[in-house]
């Protein structure tokens, strides 16, 4: 073949498949084109040396601190929350329950209403299930991030986990509250998982803001050895299921925590 053009050589370097074998064969035989390719390579390699100033160790936090005051509160309006794809199914179920209750109320005789105490208990449980579900989701995120954190390159001596540490501190307060509530409600299974989660959160919240790769590895091992991430995921899914069941059959939901504790 004729000597490939500069554009063809650059495309070849980029891994372009068109005429690849032909150019490859030509390069084996033509020193001039090999030299041309090396020169292109040399320019691109030199350009890689173009320096980008290091924005500093706490850059991530600084960006957030400057940004946060500019962010408008994104309080989801009640209808927006229910329009999220994941919640649409729940919204549909709730609507079906309300319609069914309305229809049943219209066609049934008065005097057969459920005891008030049982209803209040169901409401409390429902609030706990939703709130703890959210809490476990947030905790899962922090634990996953910590498990995935690593030194950006071999040379980095310390890893900044300040963000995870602060969030673990915030979650700790919530966790204590939910654990106590779960205990009061007799949901010992949930209380036990929250207790284990609390220990991990205490661990993280009391770690230094920036840790050595060895310290990070030790935190990661503690998370792993307790299998807490797995437990949090299982309980999170179970709570989601409970929430769905409550929406589908509100009167039976109160019995489920008791059954789970027995199991």
């Amino acid at each position, binding site marked *: 073949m004729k000597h490939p053009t500069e554009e063809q050589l650059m495309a070849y370097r980029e891994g372009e498949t068109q005429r690849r074998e032909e150019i490859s064969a030509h390069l084996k035989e033509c020193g001039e084109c090999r030299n041309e390719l090396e020169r*292109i390579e040399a320019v691109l390699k030199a*350009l890689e040396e173009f320096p*980008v100033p290091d924005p500093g160790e706490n850059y*991530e936090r600084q960006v957030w601190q400057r940004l946060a005051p500019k962010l408008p509160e*994104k309080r989801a309006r009640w209808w927006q929350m229910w329009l999220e794809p994941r919640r649409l199914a729940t919204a549909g179920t709730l609507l079906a329950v309300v319609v069914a209750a309305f229809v049943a109320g219209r066609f049934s005789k008065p005097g057969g209403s459920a005891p008030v105490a049982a209803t209040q208990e169901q409401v409390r449980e429902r609030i706990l299930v939703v709130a703890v579900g959210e809490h476990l989701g947030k905790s899962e*995120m922090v634990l996953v991030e910590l498990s995935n954190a690593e030194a950006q390159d071999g040379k980095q001596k310390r890893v900044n986990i300040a963000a995870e540490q602060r969030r673990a501190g915030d979650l700790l307060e919530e966790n204590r509250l939910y654990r106590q509530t779960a205990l009061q409600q007799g949901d010992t299974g949930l209380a036990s998982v929250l207790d284990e989660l609390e220990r991990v959160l205490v661990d993280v919240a009391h770690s230094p803001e920036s840790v050595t790769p060895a310290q990070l590895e030790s935190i990661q091992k503690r998370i792993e050895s307790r299998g807490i991430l797995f437990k949090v995921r299982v309980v999170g899914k179970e709570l989601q299921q409970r929430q769905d069941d409550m929406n589908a059959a509100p009167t039976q939901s109160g019995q489920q925590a008791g059954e789970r504790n027995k199991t």
Partner: protein
Amino acid sequence: MNESVESLRQTDAIAVERVLAGDRDAYRTLVERHSRNVHRLAYRLTGNSHDTEDVVQEAFLRAYQKLGQFEARSNFGTWVYRIAANYAIDRMRQRQKEDARRESADAHGQDGTEQDPVALVRDPAPSPERLMQSTQLRREMERALKELSHAERTAFVMRHWEGCGIEDIAAVLKSNPSATKNTVFRAVQKLRRALEPFLDARAQTKVMRSEV
């Protein structure tokens, strides 16, 4: 796909969903995770720290405002990159206009010397490694990059420094993949013409030094 990349995407997706559900603090995870990469891209596109910070802030602000339009299945990192690159192009055009206006208004100039953006952002305490880098090479590169059109610089930075796909770059440039490939090629060609004589001279100096 790499497992850790996949799990990062998953936690990004969870964070996006939480922000959409009204949890503003969940956005902190996304900002803290991607700010360093956006900073690098912005600096490479604008070449100075002042505009870089402006691009970083604006990119995350716009991403927050448009989060409702974000497709849950796509990658938040790539998305915010696109927003940053788009804004950087606008910013560079705006800066060019401002500079032109200033130059015509102030025909005398301050002291007649040209401000070197690389020198402006030089670290207060450069590492020994950085000190060893040739200042002249940096100046040459900066000059060569400045000579590129905004589209060429964006195409080159995104393709060769940030490893972005042609489709992503085409989306930023509002162009098609074939024209985008051509823009990348033109950029490399121009950089080559500008830097090769300098690199050849440097290589010759090295050879001479080793012979002595």
